[in-house]
């Protein structure tokens, strides 16, 4: 099966004055349709930079990124093959929603990039209402401003915005890192359900091992711009090969030594 997204030999170098900084170096991986691919690493590992290159925010210095076989970057120009096909949900819902816009305007914003006919069809009132209810908000929330919502609700708004164009591929960049544990559970459940219902493919970027293990099929561990280990989630968790992966796993505070101990 052909991969939906393929990243081949991608590097990213930032230059600031005389300093050069290699954020990503020679990264390869591929995501097949319908899977959730996890990208894990600590701060400065280059995982977020990769997310930016996939979504068109930063051009790679070298290497290619293809989506359905077509190259996404043509030099420094991003080829938006089909507007609305690929969407992103960011980490901080505090900053990812424009504080001066009402929820309705926020959610329908991605439609502005679509051709007029499609915009009208996808932006119909029924679809909007169905979507907002589906992510767990109420229709009368549409007229409110982001500051009137809690962190979890804001992230639901961000998810609704990402889904309004009916994308097939969604990049989730630390979508629950800014949320409380109980709220995180709600959002993760929602993301799981939506994926099943809409046949989505996820690129899930996170620093949280537990979240990656729970959400993803396959994963890549990044350290200092390189992928040090890649494979199925269960294999990596049970049998880590790379020493850095092992350190990561052993640093994770364990709630219980054995999970059978719990009596909920």
């Amino acid at each position, binding site marked *: 099966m052909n991969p939906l997204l393929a990243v081949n030999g991608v590097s990213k170098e930032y230059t600031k004055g005389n300093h050069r900084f290699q954020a990503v170096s020679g990264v390869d991986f591929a995501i097949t349709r319908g899977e959730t691919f996890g990208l894990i690493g600590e701060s400065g590992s280059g995982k977020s930079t990769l997310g930016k290159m996939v979504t068109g925010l930063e051009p790679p210095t070298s290497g290619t990124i293809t989506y359905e076989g077509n190259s996404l970057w043509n030099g420094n120009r991003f080829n938006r093959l089909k507007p609305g096909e690929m969407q992103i949900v960011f980490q901080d819902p505090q900053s990812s929603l424009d504080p001066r816009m009402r929820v309705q305007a926020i959610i329908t914003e991605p439609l502005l990039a679509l051709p007029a006919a499609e915009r009208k069809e996808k932006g119909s009132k029924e679809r909007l209402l169905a979507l907002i209810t589906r992510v767990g908000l109420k229709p009368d929330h549409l007229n409110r401003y982001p500051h009137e919502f809690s962190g979890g609700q804001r992230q639901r708004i961000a998810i609704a915005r990402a889904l309004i164009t009916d994308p097939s591929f969604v990049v989730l960049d630390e979508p629950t890192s800014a949320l409380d*544990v*109980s*709220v*995180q559970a*709600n959002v993760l459940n929602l993301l799981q359900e939506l994926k099943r219902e809409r046949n989505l493919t996820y690129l899930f970027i996170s620093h949280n091992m537990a979240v990656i293990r729970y959400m993803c099929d396959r994963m890549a561990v990044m350290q200092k711009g390189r992928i040090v280990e890649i494979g199925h989630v269960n294999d990596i968790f049970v049998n880590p090969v790379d020493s850095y992966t092992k350190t990561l796993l052993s*640093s994770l*505070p364990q709630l219980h030594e054995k999970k059978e101990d719990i009596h909920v």
Partner: protein
Amino acid sequence: MLLEIHNLSVEFESMQDRVKALQAVSFSIDEGEIVGIVGESGSGKSVTALSILGLLEKNAHISTGSISYKGKNLLSLSKKDWQSLRGKEIGMVFQEPMTALHPTMRIGDQLAEVIHRHRSISYKEAYRQAVASLAEVQINDPELVARKYPFELSGGMRQRVVIALAMSAPPDLLIADEPTTALDVTIQHEVLKLMQELAQKRGTSIMLITHDLGVVAQVCQRVVVMYAGEVVETGTTQEVLHSPCHPYTKALIGALPDLAEQGQPLLAIPGESPDLRNRPDGCVFAPRCSCSLPICREDHPVLEPAVSGSLTHQVSCWGRNQ
């Protein structure tokens, strides 16, 4: 008991609202003990910490309760007594290592200034001890680091410096407010270990504020679980994490993806955290509780032994015996 908080309530006044941030909070910390205060945002855990240090904002006031430290009530202290207590008796480590240090003062000077204040020695001698204290928090080449500015250090290094600052007196109680939340997991691990070792060596008690149950499991002997400004459950780490009694604690553990099977939905808490301006008459958690009883909405539960006869494990829930 080193620290005993009894029936502490704190209100914030803003505009014309009154926000009850803490509602009759009681717990205690013994000498040499590490106690975890666990809760989500808005649970009042940071407010509790700031109350102990007398650093609450002007618009906050303590409406009831007492905080007794080594037998004396902190709330009746004069401003001057507070100032001599801070740092010397009770130290504090804040969450953000990036902003907690003075940006244009060298590390050594920041430490020396504090040591100079607490130990009544010359500044020069204080500086020498400052360098030594950097070595104690396992910083390599402490002389060099002492001459650096905070922006030249990594997050983990900075948090070590913050810990060295807080431990410089050394205090008998260290309050650590989410000390590792801003750090990477691998560094978090080291910093927690460091705190644990230092506390053990000096006999310092630690009040560790965190939202992370994993951190609690790693370092704490006892846990206090807070929700919406109240203590809902308390006990030894073993008791609370292995046989949680309050529905909120149960949900908190169940919501963690750490233990969940892939494909199985996580145990989520429905609804939103309550409006702290209008506290319900009954249990604060009742509106979101999956097993609430009629009485839960009418009457406020109090902390009572979770299992009859238990001195340590206490829970504030009407349904604890069901």
